[in-house]
């Protein structure tokens, strides 16, 4: 079943067309990758899906758990997150001065059922909700070996662990669709392998659909069910990893270059 599709979205910034008539289909439980040279418009596409930008034209349609199609074009990012789409950022956007623990707990706020006064006064039903949330956060942090570091300020973590934290924070919002923007950026081959394992694991364990932007081809080819290739804001190819690897246009535009070690 399709979980997200875009019907030809375009993004214009003044005279520049950053994304042109992008058509993407993502099915439930798939891992779909979006690749392409720098500046191809990949993060812009993410921003259009998550509501940071409103497409100049075209629509983004999300299908919820009950099978309803919801037009999310122009919705606020917070509303889209509530519907079940979470994301990480290309340049890590953790809550730097807050602790590891707080970073992930914040992601539990959007599903808070207790009202404001109950929360402020720490009434029993709010406390119960919080204990449940704390248990979930503990489990998530243990999964990435960050539970012992939970009181540390986020900015003090090593780079790789910051990336893990960001992913786990997004997971804490209980999404159905997870958008990862260059999750392996700056990682060495060993770390990338671990990340590949990890993404595969969370997809199965949390019943996720994953849409990711990546440059590390091992990760992309190793784990994706399908790939879209973007260049100058346009899709130049789409298909399975095998099809993409043998696609001449893609090779010409992109894969001919040795990827960064």
């Amino acid at each position, binding site marked *: 079943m399709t979980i997200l599709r875009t019907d030809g979205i375009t993004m214009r910034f003044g005279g520049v067309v950053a994304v042109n008539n992008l058509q993407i289909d993502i099915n439930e439980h798939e891992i779909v990758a979006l690749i392409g040279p720098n500046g191809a418009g990949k993060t812009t596409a993410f921003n259009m899906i*998550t509501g*940071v930008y409103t497409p100049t034209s075209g629509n983004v349609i999300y299908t919820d758990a009950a099978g309803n199609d919801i037009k999310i074009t122009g919705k*606020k*990012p*917070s*509303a889209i*997150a*509530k519907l079940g789409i*979470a*994301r990480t*950022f290309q340049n890590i*956007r*953790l*809550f*730097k*001065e*807050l*602790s590891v*623990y*707080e970073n992930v*707990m*914040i*992601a*539990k*706020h*959007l*599903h*808070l059922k207790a009202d*404001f006064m109950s*929360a*402020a*006064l*720490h009434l029993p039903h*709010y406390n119960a909700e*919080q204990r449940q*949330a704390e248990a979930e956060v503990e489990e998530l942090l243990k999964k990435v070996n960050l539970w012992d570091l*939970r*009181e540390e*300020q986020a900015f*003090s973590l090593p780079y790789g662990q910051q990336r893990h934290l960001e992913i786990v*924070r*997004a997971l804490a*919002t209980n999404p159905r669709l997870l958008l990862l923007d260059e999750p392996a950026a700056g990682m060495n081959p060993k770390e990338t392998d671990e990340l590949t394992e990890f993404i595969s694991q969370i997809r199965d364990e949390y019943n996720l659909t994953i849409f990711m932007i990546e440059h590390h081809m091992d990760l992309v080819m190793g784990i994706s069910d399908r790939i879209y290739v973007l260049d100058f804001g346009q899709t130049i190819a789409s298909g399975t990893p095998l099809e993409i690897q043998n696609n001449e246009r893609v090779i010409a535009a992109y894969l001919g270059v040795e990827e960064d070690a």
Partner: protein
Amino acid sequence: MANKRNLILTIILLAAFFALAWYVNFETDSYIRRVVNLCMVYAIIGLSMNLTNGFTGQFSLGQAGFMAIGAYVVGIFTVPVALRPAVFYAAPMNPLIADIYMPLWLALIIGGLLAALVAFMIGTPVLRLRGDYLAVATLGFSEIIRIVITNAQSITNGALGIKDIPPLNDVRYIFAFTAVIFVFITALINSSYGRAFKAIREDEIAAEAMGIDLFKHKCLAFMISAFFAGIGGGLYGALLGTVDPKNFLFTLTYNFLLIIVLGGMGSITGSMIGAVLVTAGLEFLRVFDEPLDLFGMAIPLFRPGFRMVIFSVLLMVLVLFWRHGIMGTREFTWDNFFAFCKNPFGFFGRKGAHKA
């Protein structure tokens, strides 16, 4: 369990302070009572400002305006009905409200609610603005509130102000309000909403991506801040015994800016400390507003206005050289306190210890 222990310790500490308030109320002279009361009122307003500026990262300069609303509700409704015609001598009081009398606690709460309502009306257009624009807009609205008060002769007595407000100098009464507000704000900051506010301060875009409705939460922080500023303003008016539009110039807001910068923007206990230091300092520095005799020579340096010059220089020095203030974003917590007692010097090595 640590939390039970902390709760009991806090209750004991509050009881101790209440006993202290009792003592100050009956055993010290009226000048000290007045300073202590002012300290607490300033603490309330400083806390309210810290909620928006320090915790949510929304730079609002509107406190004076919200204080004015609270103060005027107290002024209008707590002056005994019989005395009102004498106060409103230039133009008679609006008949709709002329006979309504409220006890102080009710006027305080209504003042706070009215301030929160005004905050909602202002917030709707203004909270979409970025940092500096928000500062200018809230500053402007603070002045507009004052302008409206100055012009609504039949309701507020205009530029003449309202006098004969039953004076408040019961230290225990003000302490009760201060303690309740302190506890509430601490509980709020340590709740899911408090974390949401801090998330907005740290990174709005990430906060939104994690499902936090920016406008709703900014507005919430703004309204709560205004509510407490209104209560603080009401207490302020009752303390002074009169209210006057000139009392609520935007320059009053700068005092609270100093308090929260000095104490640490983002620290509740910091604001309390800052309030005590600034209020005491303001009183102590009064000495510089009078001509000083040194060795029989009058020093022309010390005359009215010098005190505020020192204060403005202090604000500049703070922001240039010590912008985290005394506490930064740290809090005085029982856990921190015991950790400090066990290892005084190691305590300061760990950066940014704060409550989870």
